[in-house]
């Protein structure tokens, strides 16, 4: 990864957000290559631990993207995920991580452009924050302390 680009992981649910990311490709939209998608069956599968682990492992930003509200293919998965994201967001400052580095989005599978936009915006947002590197060891112990 180039050094100046923030590293971002996007947890996407199979049915909507992942499909939206595919559509972004079909429409040949552009977004920075530092955004990497991990596919989940549903954001309901997103363990809060993954979010912390992502930061521990070196993520500069984390995107969680599920279906629109009311459209989760497993009824309530995206609502659960949203809650977990909010909880982790509230914990992040204690680890010295800005909560803005983590965000939850609702997407429909037709929103290819929205996916690309989110990827761009998160990259910009994180660039505007002061870099996180160099404190890796600290943040690690921080996570373990939780």
């Amino acid at each position, binding site marked *: *990864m*180039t050094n100046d680009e923030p*590293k971002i*992981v996007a947890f996407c649910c*199979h*049915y*909507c957000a*992942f*499909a939206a*990311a*595919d*559509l*972004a*490709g*079909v*429409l*040949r*939209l*552009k*977004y920075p*290559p*530092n955004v*990497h*998608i*991990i596919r*989940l*069956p*549903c954001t*309901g*599968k*997103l*363990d*809060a*631990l*993954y979010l912390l*682990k*992502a930061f521990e*492992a*070196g*993520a500069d930003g984390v995107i969680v993207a599920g*279906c*629109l509200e*009311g*459209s989760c*293919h*497993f*009824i*309530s*998965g995206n609502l*659960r*995920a949203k809650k*977990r994201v909010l909880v982790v967001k509230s914990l992040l400052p204690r680890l010295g991580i800005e909560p803005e580095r983590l965000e939850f989005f609702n997407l*429909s*599978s*037709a*929103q*290819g*452009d*929205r996916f*690309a936009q989110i990827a761009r915006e998160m990259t910009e947002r994180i660039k505007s924050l002061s870099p996180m590197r160099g404190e890796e060891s600290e943040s690690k112990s921080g996570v373990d302390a939780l």
Partner: protein
Amino acid sequence: MSEIKHGSVAVVGGGIGGIQAALDLADSGFYVYLIEEGPAIGGRMAQLDKTFPTNDCAMCMLSPKLVEVGRHPNVQIITLASVESLEGRPGNFQMTIRQRPRYVDITRCIACGRCIASCVYQDTKFPSEFEVGLGKRKPVYIPFPQAVPLAAVVDPQTCIFFKSGRCPQNCLKACERGALDFTQTEKLFMLEVGAVIVAPGFDPYDARRVGEYGFGRYANVLTGPQFERLLSASGPTSGKVLRPSDGKAPKKIAFIQCVGSRDLRHQRYCSAVCCMYTTKEAIVAKEHDHQIEPTIFYIDLRAYGKGFENLVKRARAEHGVRYIRSMVSQVTEIPETKNLLIRYRDESGSLQEEEFDLVVLAVGMGPSAKGQELARRLGIELNEHGFAKTSAFNPVMSTREGVFVTGAFTGPKDIPETVVQASAAAAAVEALLAPVRGTRTHAKDYPEELVPDGTPRIGVFVCHCGSNIAGVVDVKSVAEYAKTLPGVVHAENVLYTCSQDNLKHMKEVIREKRLNRVVVASCTPRNLAALFQDTIREAGLNKFLFEMVNIREQCSWVHSDQPEQATEKAKRLVRMGVAKARELKPLSVQSVRVSPAALVLGGGLSGMIAALTLGDSGFETHLVERSAELGSDLESADVQGLKAKLLDAVRVHPKLRVHTNTTVREISGFVGNFSSVLRSPQGEERIQHGVVIVATEAYEHKPSGYLYGEDARVLTQRALEKALTPQASPGLFTVPPAAARCTVQAEPAEDEAHAPRAQGRGEGQLGKTIVMIQCVGRTERRPYCSRICCAEALKNALTLLEQDPDRQIYVLYREMISYGFFEDLYRRARDGGVVFIRYDEQSPPVVCKENDQLLVTVRDAHLRQELVIKPDLVVLSPGVVPDPYNEELSRLLKVPLDSHGFFVEAHIKLRPVDFASHGIFLCGGSHAPGTVPELIAKAQAAAGRAAIVLSRGQLEAGGIIASVDPEKCTACLTCLRECPFGAVFINEQGLAEIEAVKCQGCGICAADCPAKAIQLGQFEDAQELAMLEELFRPEQVALKALTPSPLPRRGEGERGRG
């Protein structure tokens, strides 16, 4: 009847209705030819942005269905095809098909778009059918991004080669797959099928014909379907609402209702969906752009379906949508601004003019021109409106035996009703072809699975996808890199991983190199993962030992401007995929035997129909009714003939067991294997069954106030109906003679009279002046529209007039819900002199008595005046309420009820007769109020869906499901609470356990489990975390220095599931 020979079915029309029917049939043992006129299936639903009333994304719902039907081993999709003729008899038809050339070999095309890019037409030039003329396409095009089949098509009408013969044919050269083929010609061929389902859909009414609104002349006048494309994120404006004239964002948008509908000059009937689709469009437009001020001009606001009223309320209150009750007389364009001036009469009657930036015409649903032609070729009759003629008592049966009709071809209807009818038609076919079920379908044989020895031996296949990936990503270096990753014993580049020759090659490599994990780095797993999984299964691997890495849609296509970065990213993605592959475990799929019997709860109309349909399909069915009698909900005169037939059919059916005076005491188990205890005065009985259908009905509410119960001259519509003689019925539910067959057993229903003259009230005693009051007691507590009352009132009013034309009838209403063809009744009533007075929700009419004279006071919302009527009779429409028994059923079955006591289906659009819990289905008025034909269709549909489970004999359970580690479980019950499907139970050890058959694999429980005792197969924590770690591993760390792979883990390979 001739012999039933072919276990195959032709479904004509590839819209949502056709797709649903095809899937239902293919899943229950029939081979399906899905015949589509156009180059791709998907129909009108594919063009929608959102769907009412939940505003769910249409494509999100449809796309998985498209993929499913596209990959189904027992469905053959035939595009660009039309039916020439149909010979033969039910069970043994010969259908001749004409297929136009596509000029593209779909087995070679990979939808990369190079042919399109290279076309001599530099610009997209021709109006795109999919974008309803708003977008443009080239002569060679892909119908839409999610199209199935996903392949290009050449349109000979616009292609230069066909027009002039002089074209460099760049496309031919550009195609790396040699998929283009200009030598293709039209084909004629014959299909042998046992039955036909016809689902050609509708045509939106041509707005040009409504000249006063200027569509086609004024740039900023659009139709509803066009506006839908503007709203769509993948539409011509990428979801931005922009004016066609100048590309500016409009502020004031006017929506005009009933364009071409409810109009004697155009279509007489109501198109049934426009009020709601406009409300949805207004809300979505507002959500896209807050500046927008939507105004809806309407005549009657028909929000009559489940959840519709709520959407309208939200539109008004939360989104500030302005509703104006007025018929717009004219739209004119202001030449300078291209704004539009709308002239209308407001409610007080004064003429108004208002300027708008954009006008959207809510065009109605017209009969499909292609459908009409098709009807001629199939030899089926149309009704007076040009839609397929059906029997009211079998709403999916055409006038030709063995040919069934469904969806908007039978009349205007929305998506759920279309899906219901599709399932109903499939059920009817199943009953007809039951003897030949399974004779044309094939199941694939796979070799026995190798037991992996634990150490990962991973093969990585990196796809070029022609130049789609290789043109951006240095795929060679990605494959080289893959070779260096731990666990990888083979990595290679492939030109097209999905090609037949490579699939063969892949199997050979798996055997030769003894691979036990496969990673494919190519396109999205959403389309092809199933294909590769199938391939490795053919090579003897468990299909879950597969991981797919998306380096096309999510890499080369989005980073084509940064090839180096894209290559680096592809490497990281492959590294992640390999890391996950190292951790993959084989998952087992188990077969569970299905008890081939059904339990139907509720012995009303719906229960009887559902039970008979299942019985006719050959399944033993228990029909359970709490009261002493079946069919007690069938009260009105015009269904007495039907009732008698049904009772007879149920009584003699060899597969049916009727349990009256019976309740369910206990029900346990899961799909395929339920066990229930039935309690009756005779004692208790335990039965085993594979499915449950909840078929309880809704009943007329008992009104309070309005002197009801105090004065005998105040009665309800149902009571009036009983008092009216049946001969005079205006034919609301009349039956076209020969076609009326509910089941194989039931004889054609002639409309004979069985109705008693209720209450001994003869027609003479009903009086001269009659007031009907609609929406009685429809208040906060019962805010929903009961859907059927207006039509009932109209029907009764017409009967009263037929008996005595001198009668004066007043109908006091809030909105006249005469949707669809009921509009004819409304018109006839108005023409017959019935006076319609609209009142506001806030000021309902008052009934009182003065010296024994009934007085009805109503404030006319239109005239804004108080009127007093002195009737001889007052008839109330109190609406319907669901069966109170539902609460108990809801508890027993653990299925949800809404706040009004109606059952909640799994998905309002696509699974309207399923509960979210597998194996439990619903129909009847307790799901939602409906007319007799609507209830019949729903009951047939529920039976059809249930038959899919029963017809299988075996169900597969397992695969990607969650399982609990009993060592770690602390029985905190979190999973039990959070599982949306009720799949978790507490076992004998007092620990959580997951019912494999019920688990849908969402992983909510796994993520929520505080003890981390639950893992979801294929998405285990170790697998996900391995990906995360690899993603962020600094590049400089020498890979060889990595710790050896953690596999094998405990009892790898033997780990049973479920």
